[in-house]
């Protein structure tokens, strides 16, 4: 995983997973689901976010439901990284499991919508190219680094299974 640069989309505190993935679209495809991501609070986000863009948020980002669709929608739209003051625990785990770096970023207020931001999750650096400010952030926790570096939980498990390092049940015939 290398550094990503993109446009910042900025959200406030306690943005919950119901607004990231509304229940009324649960049965739809991930395409449809993602197209409604955050529409209740920012209808411009889903139609306009570009691969590599950076989502910036306040406290308790992703609070609420365990629904993986909340995290999957960001992964599906190829968001480059998430920078939030703090995360709800299930959302944080889901995000990393989908291989999207979610970094704790106390200075979220210093990033404005549409700023150009570069995030290097491995090095633990953030650069706001619009304001010229640079930041050091805690990198991804070390025990998860290998999983993130191969692209998330599924590729990681595949690698372990292929290497014969994981014992589990067989796929029934």
């Amino acid at each position, binding site marked *: 995983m290398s550094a990503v640069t993109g446009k910042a989309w900025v959200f406030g505190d*306690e943005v*919950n997973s*119901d*607004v990231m993935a*509304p*229940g*009324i679209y*649960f*049965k739809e495809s991930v395409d449809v689901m993602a197209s409604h991501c955050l*529409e*209740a*609070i920012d209808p411009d986000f889903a139609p306009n976010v570009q691969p590599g863009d950076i989502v910036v948020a306040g*406290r*308790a980002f992703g*609070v*609420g*439901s*365990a*629904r*993986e669709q909340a*995290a*999957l929608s960001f992964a599906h739209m190829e968001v480059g990284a998430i920078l939030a003051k*703090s*995360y*709800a*625990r*299930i*959302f*944080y*785990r*889901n995000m990393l*499991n*989908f291989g999207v770096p979610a970094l704790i970023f106390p200075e979220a207020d210093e990033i404005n919508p549409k700023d150009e931001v570069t995030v290097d999750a491995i090095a633990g650096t953030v650069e706001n190219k619009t304001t010229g400010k640079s930041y050091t952030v805690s990198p991804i*926790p070390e*025990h*998860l680094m290998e999983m993130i570096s191969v692209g*998330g*939980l*599924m590729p990681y*498990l*595949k690698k372990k*299974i292929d290497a014969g390092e*994981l014992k*589990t*049940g*067989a*796929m*029934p015939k």
Partner: protein
Amino acid sequence: MGETLIQKIMARASGKESVTPGEIVTCAVDLAMILDSGGPRKIWPRLEQLGVGVYDNEKVVVVADHFVPAADPQSAAILKLTRDFVKKFDIKHFYDMEGICHVLMAENGHLQPGMFACGGDSHSTMGGAFGCYMAGFGAIEMSGVVVTGDIWSVVPETIKVDWSGSFGPGVAAKDIMLLLARELGMENAFKVVEYGGETIRNMSMMERMVLTNMAAELGAETGLIAPDETTLEAIRAGGTEPAADALEWRSDDDATFCAEHTFDASTLAPQVAAPHKPSNSAPAQDYEKDQIHVDQAYIGACVGAKLTDLHMVASVLKGRQVKSGTRLMVAPSSKKIMKEAAADGTLATITEAGGMLLPSGCGACAGLGAGIIAEGEVCISSTNRNFQGRMGSNESFVYLGSPYTVAAAAVAGHIVDPREMLS
């Protein structure tokens, strides 16, 4: 030095002598509960991709509760896929339209003090009422759990919350949680909330489960209540003999807590959370001056339609009628509860008052089933979460209250303090 209950559980599950908060451990999973919503339909394709099966067909429990009963072809297909998964992987414990998963785990003796359990739903914290670790995870993480049978955790610190005194009439465990959401906030990630004190000791298991269920609303890893005779009785009622060491699973007297809070239940008033978050709460009587018209009163979900909850509703509705212009819908949390409430006359009281019964399932609480609301509508609900758009339209408004408070609003047609209707 003393240890907290969560330290003891995680030490056992990770095969260590002891663990300390902040330590990262890998825990063996004793029970992995997956659901129609984020279970087989998400996990099966991943198992195909990996070319493996489940780690233990006795420990992976499947529940169909989110899209039940099927209301459209997509729901029907999801439920069929869920049943096919159970057959294909020879899953030993499957609950098909029996009720909501968290309540079923309790009703059917799946939970024991000291266990380490994971569920594919954020309110899996409810199981913590049995003195076990049970927490919610996303489908992607549960996909990993059903393959590996283990999961990483950061050993949490514990927030101790003690309640003393007895509730006045018309006050319930739900009011405790709506107050705690306001007092402790929703940002307690990677911490455990352990409830104790005389008030909790005197509660039924179903009321205790409200406290651990809504630990999710505090943002906590999970909620815990140390087991006692009430816990053991509930395990036996589910057809399982409690483990010999069941009562040993408790925090030591000299354990270290990151925060300790004490509250008095005797002065607690009914609470209502206003849109759009559970922490946005205030005493119910504060809402009366605004005469907030209620289009729908909803009794449902894992947290708010257990037998004790239906009894609260009936105590308000007895001899009264639901106000014209307001609709009351009641979806009992499980079929067993539906049957018990039918047998003891509770359902008759509800229907005589004008309430409508809905099937047991997650339903309208999560915007998935019958009872969702339209733009501009107001619902007061015994459920646990009122985020924007959760129960239907993004432009609808959900208030949260106890079953007493929801029933009282159904009768009054607006939000009132339910104590006015209870002598």
